């Protein structure tokens, strides 16, 4: 059983990070969100649409865009702009409207100058930004990213996270972000922790990362600042609860 009686509701405009070790059911959960997988029992609704309703399938997939882990295995066309056009082409959008959407989407992820490139000449981070643009061109309202940075170098990781944060902030896109990198999870408004197909924690980054012990027991990390703060407290240093970022620790220590 990959998912075990999961109850979860994500509001429009939220930025949710999902954490969990490999095999905890994160990817299975993500694939439920745009009907790539269907629940064996229970219901999954996307913007009110039941994912099991075949006639709404394309509406659902248009509403929820997916970005996967391996940047190479989700770019279909041999040229960047043609790949971004792939989604709207499938939806039967008229060609001048596709052109406009492709231009907008590439601009939104800062890849306009690479529009004529072949994908294999791009870095991993750039490929993932192209993949994000590909979902934006379908007018996606919710972006589900399944470990989008796992195969990237630090520069690529930063590129992807910054792009996602900006889209969330400026376009109000709902984000579901699965990751192993705690610093990335700390950027979310809410963190959901999964274990053995169940949701075991659900709260703000502060609440989740404040409990260093509990996270460790689940085989997960916490951001360094949270760990250091926790260890300093054990050494008798008086610090406020729920320190997550470097800046918070600096303020607490230097007040």
């Amino acid at each position, binding site marked *: 059983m990959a998912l075990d009686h999961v109850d979860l509701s994500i509001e429009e405009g939220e930025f949710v990070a999902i954490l969990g070790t*490999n095999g905890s059911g994160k990817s299975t959960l993500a694939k439920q969100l745009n009907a790539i997988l269907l629940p064996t029992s229970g219901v999954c609704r996307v913007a009110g649409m039941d994912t099991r309703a075949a006639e709404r399938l394309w509406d659902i997939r248009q509403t929820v865009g997916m970005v996967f882990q391996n940047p190479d295995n989700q770019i279909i066309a041999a040229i960047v702009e043609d790949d971004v056009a792939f989604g709207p082409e499938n939806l039967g959008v008229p060609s001048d409207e596709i052109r406009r959407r492709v231009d907008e989407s590439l601009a939104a992820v800062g890849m306009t100058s690479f529009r004529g490139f072949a994908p294999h000449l791009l870095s991993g981070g750039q490929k993932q930004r192209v993949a994000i643009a590909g979902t934006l061109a379908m007018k996606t309202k919710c972006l589900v990213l399944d470990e989008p940075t*796992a195969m990237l170098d630090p*520069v690529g990781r930063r590129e992807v996270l910054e792009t996602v944060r900006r889209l969330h902030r400026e376009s109000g896109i709902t984000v579901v972000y699965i990751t192993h990198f705690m610093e990335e999870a700390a950027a979310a408004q809410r963190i959901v922790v999964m274990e053995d197909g169940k949701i075991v924690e659900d709260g703000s980054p502060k609440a989740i990362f404040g409990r260093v012990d509990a996270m460790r027991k689940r085989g997960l990390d916490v951001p360094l600042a949270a760990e250091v703060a926790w*260890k*300093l407290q054990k*050494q008798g240093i008086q610090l406020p609860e729920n320190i997550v970022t470097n800046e918070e620790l600096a303020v607490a*220590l230097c007040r």
Partner: protein
Amino acid sequence: MPIELRDVTYTYMKGTPFERTALQNVSLTIADGSLTAIAGHTGSGKSTLVQHLNGLLHPTKGEVLVDGVNLAGKKEEAGLARRKVGMVFQYPEQQLFEETVAADIAFGPKNLELSEDEVNRRVRSAMEFVQLDYETYKDVSPFRLSGGQMRRVAIAGVLALKPDYLVLDEPTAGLDPQAREELLRRIVDLHRKKKLTIIVVSHNMEDIARMAERVVFMHDGHVLVDAPPSKAFLADEKMREAGLTAPPTVALLSILRDKGLQVDADAFTADEAVKRILKAIQKKGGAKC
């Protein structure tokens, strides 16, 4: 005896419009028994560099010597020298092909034409070292294992060659935090207990900071920094030039220092960072700032 790169230049697709110089006049000596980390962003030339270490690529100009033998040489000697360097590629689990774990690990030793007994001995000890129980896993298909276990099988496949030098390209990429932690510990053990000379290529500064004795930053096909971690990671400007970020501990302590806490930034584990902060606070007589 060390590995020596003498003024190595390497050009891809020489003589075509796609010509690209990946390494430019690189000179580097990897001392026996050291643990060196090579860092650099994608395209910095670090992967090209390590492929020179066991003769997969030969320099367009310059030479690579392992224990004093030029790897580009035609003689048997050069072949033997190349074998001294074990190479674990990025995502090594993608190279598994045999039906059982034991058979896959045995592939290398069998290519060395060792006796069956010796092959079995090596498979067993390599599996032990990567903490895969021989009896439990030897007859299991490698493709039924978890990602972390598959990677350990692949690394065992290289260890079974009994190399003197071990090169690992992004060994922890794609692993979850727990699997990553375990693998790093095994690598440090290889260095300490088996006295292997280890070269780790990575862009994960946290990994590098925790284990390397020496850090080489590559940028644009040449060596930008070559220093112990305590120096290399504090060279802010060079790191930025190489497109790298400081390890989290250094970043944290630097911020504290900017805010006025008199703390040394040369800590590479959480515990060291805590010690530095405690020391700084005590110096202040218990006052935090």
